[in-house]
């Protein structure tokens, strides 16, 4: 049986195993520093489909198929898919998996969806009701822009704190047995809203949530930053990462050189014109499912706290004068 430590952290007993991971991204991400780790780079922003929403579903489904292929499992072995994206009604995921004959749970955690799905799936596998599950998340620059911002051809300037929605998806096959790194512990995050109103500054909106989850995890487990090889945040971007370091240092927690942020490593911030870095569910999903897993396979990483962060932004509520709630869920992966 799993047991709870402190207020938030759950230590898993059966420790689900990451059997495989896959990540497929768009052209801009494919031009970035992590290009060689991705399973495929889709040059066409429509991915052969007619709309951006359909393209996102296509990329998500292809990533799911790729992850299954790498795990040696077939879709009939999978008892549950947990997936989500940024679009209203989790459009990309619902349409990606409508022809897959497997039970599906749709999740919305904004950009934190990947760690949310891993956390939920691990607990379900730990509980014994599911043997194999697939966790996946996606985003698409063009579908996100049209829902949250402006039409693509509208000539607007981006603010320096803004982040670039990643076109891409990541998928992980989790199982009760097999070979691979294990998920040993999860710390589901609380919704934290520190009053940020600027929807072009999501990093600042999310970093208090990342701070809260990381701090709670360390307190609950009685560990320090030194006990980890890497603390990988979702997509705080460069500015959000600065804020996270500042907040943690106020609590006397020093991240030292143990911190990386998916949003800042997926792009070359200087050369690719993405301001503070990448964002979107697909960002942390693709980075974690490819680059980070690869580092585990090579034995470079042995204990990673993966904390994907999400800005639970509602354009409607922002127009009504509300602030942006943030969330961050942590999963601990050990070799």
């Amino acid at each position, binding site marked *: 049986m799993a047991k709870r430590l402190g207020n938030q952290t759950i230590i898993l007993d059966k420790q689900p195993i990451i059997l495989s991971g896959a990540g497929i991204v768009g052209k801009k991400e494919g031009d970035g520093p992590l290009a060689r780790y991705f399973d495929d780079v889709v040059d066409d922003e429509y991915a052969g489909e007619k709309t951006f929403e359909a393209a996102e579903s296509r990329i998500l489904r292809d990533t799911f198929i790729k992850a299954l292929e790498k795990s040696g499992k077939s879709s009939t072995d999978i008892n549950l898919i947990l997936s989500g994206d940024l679009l209203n009604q989790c459009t990309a995921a619902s349409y990606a998996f409508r022809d897959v004959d497997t039970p599906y749970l749709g999740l919305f955690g904004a950009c934190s969806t990947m760690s949310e799905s891993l956390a939920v799936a691990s607990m379900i596998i730990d509980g014994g009701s599911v043997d194999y599950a697939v966790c996946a998340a996606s985003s698409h620059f063009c579908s996100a822009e049209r829902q949250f911002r402006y039409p693509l051809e*509208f*000539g*607007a300037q981006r603010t*320096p704190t803004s982040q670039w929605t990643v076109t891409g998806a990541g998928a992980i096959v989790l199982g009760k047995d097999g070979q691979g790194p294990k998920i040993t512990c999860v710390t589901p995050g609380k919704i934290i809203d520190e009053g940020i109103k600027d929807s072009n500054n999501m990093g600042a909106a999310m970093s208090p949530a990342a701070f809260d989850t990381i701090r709670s995890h360390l307190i609950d487990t009685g560990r320090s930053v030194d006990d980890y090889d890497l603390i990988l945040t979702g997509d705080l971007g460069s500015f959000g990462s600065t804020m996270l370091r500042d907040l943690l240092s106020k609590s006397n927690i020093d991240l030292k050189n143990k911190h990386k942020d998916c949003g800042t490593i997926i792009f070359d911030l200087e050369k690719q014109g993405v301001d*503070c870095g990448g964002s979107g569910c697909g960002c942390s999903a693709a980075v974690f499912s490819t680059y980070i897993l690869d580092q585990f396979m090579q034995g470079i990483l042995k204990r990673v706290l993966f904390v994907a962060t999400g800005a639970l932004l509602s354009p409607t509520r922002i127009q009504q004068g509300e602030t942006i709630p943030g969330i961050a869920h942590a999963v601990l992966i050990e070799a």
Partner: protein
Amino acid sequence: MKKQISKHEYQKMVDKKAPGSHIVRNLFAAFITGGAICSVGQIVMLVFKNFGADKETVASVTSIIMVFIGAFLTGINIYDEIGKFGGAGASIPITGFSNSIVSPAMEFKKEGYVMGVGAKMFLIAGPVLVYGIFSSVVAGLLYFIWKQVM
């Protein structure tokens, strides 16, 4: 768990550290872009004047041509780049207004001609039209009253 800092303190931390816009660069880019667009407008105007068109016709034709240029450059995926570089220098002239109508029309074509193009075309320009027309009505009324009184 005890809160470390208040919302107000956090906002102050963010304001202090947030990277700001490059004001000098942006002003310069806006000046160059806006200036270039207006110069093109001026050239068009002078050409028509040269052909002997009267003042009102010249004004209308120049606007029509500038709107067309804005729409055309939007259609061939260039105006968004101009906007990214020039900021307000690209959005304030009439070409920017044209861009703000054509870009949603292109974007929402996938949702059909009625609920897509038709309904979403004025997504960005809508408020400009509403308040533009409203203020012209107010100005007209004031002008009318002024004429009666004086």
